[in-house]
């Protein structure tokens, strides 16, 4: 079994140090207190600043605990901020795929649509931001379930309502489907939510790989899938590229 990771221990010590006393310390003071090289302390502080656990005062250069620490348990990324950061890439995905794009996060056992881009064919469509969708029957939902063990367990404990004859209603089958989502890095859905409709989605990640939402396309099954209802590879690539671009903007993979 691997031993403790020294950098994490040091980061924890820095947070403890900032949590007591005046709560505002310079990098030199922190390094001296913990007997670290200044460069080491600085590197850890910059990393903690990147994830929002510490903040640096612009005027004095001193560090203090970050606001993100106070909200560890609650929603990690504001949904309006998620939309704002994702809007360019969602537009580009709609333009490339020719299909409608949605971004979803989980809310009380559902997918909440936080962003929606019309299918770019200028037909009459209605914004459905704020709409709730079922987790188990949509590609967006499967992505959210695949990367959130608690949410998946909770969903599987309840009855999985059947929406079409293809909806996955069996908990074991859903578990298998979610394992596949994790393995391939994206989720597909064909006529499981609405007859004739299909969806493809991929995870949006933030710092450290944390999944904060899902982005995906939906459209007629005969456009999104091949003759055997398998999602078309080029569309999967477009969706995954869009998800990766948003994730990069949110700080994942740095």
């Amino acid at each position: 079994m691997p031993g403790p990771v020294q950098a994490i221990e040091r980061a924890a010590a820095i947070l403890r140090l900032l949590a007591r006393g005046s709560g505002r310390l310079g990098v030199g003071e922190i390094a001296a207190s913990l007997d670290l090289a200044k460069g080491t302390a600085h590197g850890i502080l910059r990393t903690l600043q990147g994830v929002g656990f510490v903040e640096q005062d612009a005027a004095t250069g001193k560090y203090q605990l970050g606001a993100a620490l106070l909200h560890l348990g609650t929603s990690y990324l504001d949904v309006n901020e998620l939309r704002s950061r994702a809007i360019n890439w969602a537009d580009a995905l709609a333009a490339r795929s020719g299909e409608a794009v949605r971004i979803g996060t989980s809310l009380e056992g559902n997918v909440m649509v936080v962003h929606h881009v019309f299918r770019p064919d200028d037909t009459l469509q209605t914004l459905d931001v704020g709409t709730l969708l079922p987790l188990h029957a949509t590609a967006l939902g499967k992505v959210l379930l695949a990367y959130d063990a608690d949410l998946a367990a909770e969903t599987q404990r309840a009855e999985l309502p059947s929406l079409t004859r293809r909806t996955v209603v069996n908990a074991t089958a859903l578990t298998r489907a979610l394992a596949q989502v994790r393995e391939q890095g994206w989720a597909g859905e064909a006529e499981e939510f609405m007859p004739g409709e299909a969806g493809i989605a991929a995870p949006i990640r933030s710092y450290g790989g944390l999944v904060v939402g899902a982005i995906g396309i939906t459209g007629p099954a005969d456009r999104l899938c091949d003759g055997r209802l398998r999602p078309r590879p080029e569309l999967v690539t477009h969706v995954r590229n869009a998800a990766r671009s948003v994730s990069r903007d949110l700080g994942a993979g740095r």
Partner: protein
Amino acid sequence: MTQRYVMAIDQGTTSTRCILFDQRARLVSVAQREQQQYFPQPGWVEQDAVEIWRNVDRIVPRALADAGISADQVMALGIANQRETTVVWDRRTGAPVGRAIVWQDVRTEELVREFERKPDAEQVRERCGLPLATYFAAPRLRWLLDNVPGLRDRAERGDVLFGTMETWLIWNLTGGVDGGLHVTDVTNASRTLLMNLAILAWDDELLSFFDIPKRMLPEIRPSTADFGQTTRVVPGLRIAAALGDQHAALFGQTCFARGETKCTYGTGSFLLMNTGRELVRSTHGLLTTIGYQLGGEPAVYALEGPIAVTGSLVQWIRDSLGLINSAPEIETLARTVDDNGGCYIVPAFSGLFAPHWHSEARGIIVGLTSYITKGHLARAVLEATGWQTREVVDAMNADSGLTASTLRVDGGMTADHLLMQFIADVLDIPVMRPIVAETVSLGAAYAAGLGVGFWPDLEGLRRNWHLAARWLPQLDAERRAAEYANWQRAVELTFGWAQPRRPV
């Protein structure tokens, strides 16, 4: 065949962006850096032109690297920029004589009042289409000439150059002290108060009115023209277009026909209507400006309603009041309540622009009671943008004799659904967002790509425009009228506040 692209640089008020587009106008990569804003005194807003240049130096290679393409795949570069922001630099060292004075800066208020008292002040609007106001570049340039020791002499000798941001960037990109081109385009020049709108050239009467040496001014070219080749940052890029950011957005929204209108929601917000080859003089507080000019063609004119403070009010709530951590959270906060609770914010931070033009107005929050929470303030912040849009649309309808039936929107604030719905509600017309919200960059790319034949014609560009979202009006007429009346009363309360010599 190798894929080919067009690059846009959008030098905006808060950040500089470099965006690559493919032939179907789809965004391929974005690199961005914010620049520092300096507020040395109340009403003063400055930026460091050297920092902006350094940011360009970083983001251009990064946008190429992110897209995994090489410079020879870039067919053209288009530049869009914050307008009216004024910088003067030494042509031999390339060093600015001070910080750039930003378009929101109102230090020239007293100076503008002096200009207004001159006997020939009336001719200014006639010649350049703009009212005398602190908003435009000429008073800033004059302020620098009056206040930077020795600057006037250096200007008369031809040692220093004036430019807005596109001029500064093009001069640097094409060599700087080593043969850099000192050029601007008609849209940027139309925002100085110095260009004659009918002949599209520097106006000697206006130069003498503001007492500005012609030697320091850049050469005016059409918006799509040969602006030289880059020799620095990434050498060999062909600079084929330059436009003021709002003109670029008009172009990016493909408002090519007379009567087509767009509004861009950013730091400030800017409503522009294409008026075709006709120079329409406003009688309702709008500006006459150049929409764009394609090389070898006559200019296309536009009417504009600029609103100074919209997104920057959200930034103020974030940075100065600390009520939110990021700008988009204003929507989250506003949704904690159902209405404004009777509270109105008129953000006359730089005076009021269109259609009022009260440079002495200052911001207010009215209707405060102990009932008001920060959620109500957040609502009032968003509603201020909606009502300011309404005032400008009303003026536009009155001037043009046309009634807008939809509004095309773009810019960062279009991500805010509560705001977009509110705008549809107060205008009582549908609000439509196209699939590329980055229309400033797209417009610069379109103009540049058109210039080098990457795109064949305007019709081809039009086919790229697709609807991404639409908000339909839902508010009942009575409520709309009552709220508008409240807003108008609030606006009147801001007038006259900053008058320095008010009778006691």
